[in-house]
């Protein structure tokens, strides 16, 4: 037990604990619909961008179809709970399953091509699903969308039913999902699996030369991202109570990209920072969507040119350099010893 604590605290997990506590006590201080709504969107963006980060910052692939998983999760929950009386958890679970299946299929197909074409193919799949959503009216109700999605409720027989109706209750629901997801992604990032992902991103042939089946791990990263995208989508359907083909949106994609890149690709901390920045700030500025997206585009380009490692990446670089400076000062004497 003590060793466990040692492990986590040493790895900076304490910051995460504080983060979780912070998230959990927000409703104690406010029941403002506005703030809770903003934080709920923060939660959804976080779920989506952690998955995207696993692709871009993890295995180093540009996947442009996260909104696809979002939409699949949302439609699955919407269709099942609204038309077939599925319970919320059932819809959520099947949303995850379908997103995983879609991710797997898209992944298998898209990974057959070069990484340039991969980006295009994933985008193409998103468009295809959007077109199908518009067209398959009997399943998705077409461009009119699916209204009247019920609020999430969990029933345990002979105990009772919880319905998440008020903003506070909905907020707690997403907070639970966020905490679980962040723990999962944290675990992945700091495990051998995370290291394997980075090895693929850094130098794929080298990784292969040391036994890494890069295709398998790329699919794993993709499916994980897909699952959490699906969870976010499921929640969204119940929160907004309406789903339409507009959900497969390019604008969502830009926001996610900017979160990952500006926050710091490859770092969970960076994604959390990015998600927070790009839910809170645009809300505070109250910009028209076109202007907001225009600014995002410009910002993204500038950051790519000036600081592609993102906010958190910059911070990590600085820390590294400081530690290195300290080490060089200490070792100035014996550096000549074994220089190659």
């Amino acid at each position: 037990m003590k060793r466990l604590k040692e492990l986590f605290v040493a790895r900076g997990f304490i910051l995460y604990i504080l983060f979780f506590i912070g998230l959990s006590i927000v409703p104690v201080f406010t029941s403002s619909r506005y703030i809770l709504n903003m934080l709920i969107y923060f939660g959804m963006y976080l779920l989506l961008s952690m998955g995207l980060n696993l692709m871009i910052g993890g295995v180093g692939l540009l996947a442009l179809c996260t909104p696809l998983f979002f939409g699949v999760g949302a439609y699955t929950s919407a269709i099942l709970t609204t038309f077939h009386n599925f319970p919320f958890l059932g819809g959520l679970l099947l949303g995850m399953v379908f997103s995983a299946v879609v991710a797997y299929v898209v992944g298998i197909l898209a990974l057959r091509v070069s990484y340039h074409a991969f980006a295009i193919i994933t985008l193409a799949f998103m468009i295809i699903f959007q077109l199908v959503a518009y067209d398959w009216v009997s399943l998705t109700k077409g461009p009119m969308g699916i209204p009247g999605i019920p609020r999430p409720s969990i029933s345990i027989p002979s105990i009772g039913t919880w319905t998440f109706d008020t903003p506070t209750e909905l907020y707690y629901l997403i907070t639970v999902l966020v905490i679980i997801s962040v723990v999962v992604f944290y675990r992945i990032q700091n495990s051998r699996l995370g290291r394997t992902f980075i090895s693929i991103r850094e130098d794929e042939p080298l990784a292969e030369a040391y036994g890494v089946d890069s295709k398998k791990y790329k699919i794993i990263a993709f499916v994980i991202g897909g699952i959490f995208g699906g969870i976010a989508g499921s929640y969204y359907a119940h929160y907004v109570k309406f789903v339409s083909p507009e959900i497969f949106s390019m604008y969502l994609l830009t926001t996610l990209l900017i979160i990952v890149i500006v926050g710091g690709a490859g770092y969970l901390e960076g994604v959390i920072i990015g998600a927070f920045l790009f839910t809170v700030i645009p809300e505070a500025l109250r910009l028209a969507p076109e202007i907001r997206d225009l600014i995002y585009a410009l910002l993204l380009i500038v950051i790519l040119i000036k600081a592609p490692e993102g906010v958190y990446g910059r911070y990590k670089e600085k820390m590294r350099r400081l530690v290195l400076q300290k080490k060089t000062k200490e070792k100035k004497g014996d550096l000549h010893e074994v220089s190659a």
Partner: protein
Amino acid sequence: MKSLLEINDVSKHFFAIKALNKVNLDLKEGEILGLIGPNGSGKTTLFNCITGFYMPDGGKIYFEEEEITGLPPHEIALKGMVRTFQLVHVFRKMTVIENMIMALQQFQDTSVINTLFRPRYIEKLEEEAIEKAEKILDFLGILFLKDNYASELSYGQQKLLEIGMSLMPSPKVLMLDEPTAAVNPTMINKITQIIKKLNSEKNQTFFVIEHNIDFIMDLCNRVVVLDHGEKIAEGKPEKIKEDPKVIEAYFGV
């Protein structure tokens, strides 16, 4: 001596260019085999075919009597064949010790389930890997760099790291692609000593591509010469040095 690697009539072409034309060779356990030839003769192409990075267009490759032709690189690596690359390749954004662990990681366990759900088991594997890594780094003289990022190392130090990584999985065959390229003479000497030591003490089998003739003469038991994708000579280094065909290939006389 057992034949570890058998290459039968392997050919590889890129569009119209025949990079390899029915090359035959075998590698015996415990030997240091050199592969030389002028630029463009197909040495690295042969390495790539053997290790799965290229798919041969003809011929078969056997490792320990098992056919491995056309298998993907990671499977061939896991069978015990480790290779290095021409320009030094290490994981630049990882620390030296992480690089070393990464080199052994997949050989210990490839199961994703285990990685995520059995922390204590993995912890044990990590400790084993760190222990082995530190021994090797010490042997190579770069243990003091273990927490530095690979990108912070000098070229020569990175080359040593690369060699260290290749030793981690205790490979049955170690394939080095131009280990002395762009390296200063002191380091070349060091690398030569390392290879000699590993070969004599641990019976480590080496297959080395090289341009540095002195290095080859000093080190190899046997040498194979390629020219324009074909094997033109094979034998002991002293004999190869005098072989007129080899001289012509290199100097076009």
